[in-house]
């Protein structure tokens, strides 16, 4: 259950359980319903789901019964039917236990109101049963929310400086180390796929980090966006605070970056979709020269994506890395297009996740980081940059994201 709780979407991941009960429950819940027993103790708070969501779950239950009927009639199910059946049956089952548990709690509350002499016993019972109920509630919600198709994937984190010159390059580098520290603290395998350092000063021109942990994509995908820093550069003599930015792109990693995987992936393209350019010196080549020209440039015509890779001495490895990156970019692009289509269908505005918007500010003079999407603020820049405290921000943004998704679900 612990695993469930942290997955939130019902995907058993290997991620450590971050928080059994998402904090947003209370917030979300109190907006829609004011009849809970209020308690100081978080664990005694009963996280009932809003009616709309319950209605949605009931629809699944109905469908489950229908499907079951068809099945008993001896109908043959195809793969899609089977999947649908599994989904409906799982929602129906959770809904049933959820409702049973809820009515138990309601009875206990009733008892307190009707017979004050039973109050202590009933309260004890409530204290025992509420956490279990909340688990069910969380699990049910997880089943109702759409699962991100790449939720269980490892990820690539790409960093690029934005506005602000060298300061932006330094900030991009700081963010790169922040994500590596973060992976390190969680004991997730990670490595730098490519990095171009600013040779004429400090900072980086770009970096791609691979975080190989399954589920890392789901955990980090909300980190994508423009991050802004406000601080006094070391070189600044007048003590003025500069503002600069760096862009973070988080991509699902669909295969490892080994040469074998990349070779297999390469074969999925038609020859005219892809062009591979090798950096080659002119001249006779062969035994005449012994240079180490291993740079590879990949052009994917249908999407216009161009990827250059030169970090490795092995051309084979450079090519493999370029394909890994291409694959991740294409997957993300496709997902974005799907999401955009979904949003258009709902005739809804893209909420604050507009790509050009700054998602977060790191204010060094105030030792403060604020995430602008959810309004979460933390006063511990060193802790966050060291990777320890980043989870606090990520939790908050995820909470916000789930909230938004649940709202969309209600609108539907």
């Amino acid at each position: 259950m612990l695993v469930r709780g942290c997955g939130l979407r019902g995907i058993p991941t290997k991620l450590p359980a971050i928080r059994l009960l998402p904090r947003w429950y209370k917030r979300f819940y109190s907006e829609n319903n004011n009849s809970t027993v209020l308690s100081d103790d978080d664990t005694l708070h009963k996280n009932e789901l809003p009616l709309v969501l319950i209605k949605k779950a009931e629809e699944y239950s109905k469908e489950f019964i229908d499907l079951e009927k068809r099945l008993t009639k001896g109908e043959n199910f195809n793969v899609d039917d089977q999947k649908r059946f599994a989904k409906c049956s799982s929602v129906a089952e959770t809904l049933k236990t959820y409702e049973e548990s809820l009515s138990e709690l309601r009875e206990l509350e009733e008892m307190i109101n009707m017979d004050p002499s039973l109050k202590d016993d009933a309260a004890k019972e409530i204290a025992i049963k509420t956490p279990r109920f909340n688990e069910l509630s969380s699990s049910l919600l997880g089943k109702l929310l759409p699962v991100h198709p790449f939720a269980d994937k490892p990820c690539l984190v790409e960093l690029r400086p934005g506005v602000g010159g060298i300061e932006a390059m330094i900030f991009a580098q700081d963010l790169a180390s922040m994500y590596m520290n973060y992976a390190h603290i969680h004991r997730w395998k990670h490595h730098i796929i490519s990095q171009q350092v600013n040779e004429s000063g400090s900072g980086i021109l770009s970096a791609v980090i691979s975080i190989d942990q399954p589920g890392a994509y789901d955990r980090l995908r909300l980190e994508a966006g423009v991050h802004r820093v406000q601080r006094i550069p070391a070189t600044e003599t007048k003590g003025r605070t500069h503002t600069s930015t760096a862009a973070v792109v988080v991509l699902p990693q669909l295969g490892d970056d080994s040469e074998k995987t990349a070779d297999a992936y390469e074969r999925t393209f038609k020859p005219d979709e892809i062009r591979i350019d090798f950096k080659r010196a002119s001249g006779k080549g062969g035994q005449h020269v012994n240079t180490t020209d291993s740079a590879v440039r990949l052009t994917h015509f249908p999407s216009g994506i161009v990827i250059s890779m030169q970090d490795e001495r092995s051309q084979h490895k450079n090519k493999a890395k370029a394909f890994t990156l291409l694959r991740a970019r294409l997957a993300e692009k496709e997902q974005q297009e799907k999401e955009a289509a979904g949003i258009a269908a709902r005739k809804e505005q893209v909420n604050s996740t507009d790509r050009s918007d700054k998602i977060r500010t790191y204010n060094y003079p105030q030792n403060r980081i604020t995430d602008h999407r959810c309004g979460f603020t933390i006063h511990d820049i060193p802790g966050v940059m060291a990777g320890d405290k980043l989870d606090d921000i990520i939790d908050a943004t995820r909470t916000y994201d789930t909230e938004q998704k649940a709202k969309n679900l209600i609108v539907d």
Partner: protein
Amino acid sequence: MLMAENRTIPHARQELRWLIQKFGSNNSATLFRACLERNRHVPLQYILGSQPFGMLDIKCKEGVLIPRWETEEWCLNLTDSIKRSKLINSGASNWKIMDLCTGSGCIPLTMINETKNLFSNQTRLYVDALDYSPIAIDLSKLNFKTNFDNKVALSQNFNVSFNIQKCNILNEPEIIQYLGKYKEKRKINILTCNPPYIPHHEFIKDVRSSVRMYEPKLALIGNLEFYKNLNDLWVGKNLIDSFVYEIGTLEQALYVQNNLPSSWISGITLDSNNKARCIFGYNKEANIDYSKIFNHFKQTAKVYASIANSDVTK
């Protein structure tokens, strides 16, 4: 300091990064010596001690030619073509591959590494590597050891055996004697060779100083000797079913083509720098249908060549 061997600043930077990766930045004396060597045109691969080749890391030492990307390209193309041909799983007979002028051993070791999974209980792969230079023999042995632990592990896990022999390839009797030692006198399925192919008159004019000054002339200078040897001995005495030879000039390939018997099919392939790079040939009357390998080999090389008209090449 690194600019002597690197024409652009990004190239020099990249190289410095690799040197630092190898020697560390705190051991400045070693790093400095390495840069100094580079300034004197010592090949980077000799300083770093290795060159990636396909999936393998090939150790490099002075006195032995550094593997080239062109060789890597056709060699991987060949192993890929072998894998796709499905010829090995289908026939239950053993396979024999021989690499002449093996140098560091990069070609036969890649052949083993890429195809070893195809050889099971019934079919065994015999790979032979020959070279005349004792330093090359030692280095190819070392490369075998570092990439495959040792012979025992390879023959236990895969049905593959590897043999390295010092031999003068241009000395026919010596070769015949060597082949005669084999209990099982079967034909060689594929003969590979990257012979010294730089004609004398090109050596001063067209060869980069780093190559000229530090790589062995025995590995570089040659013209038609080895191609003539291919026609007269290997094809002529019916010792092989097929071959792939790297070439430096088109004349070398045409020489081979013009002297092949009529039962042989041959072709010339380009590398991804659009230079004629290989001559291949197979006996269409052989027991095995080698077109299954070489049709793919030819096509892939064509794709390489067509993607090569690149504007990255400055």
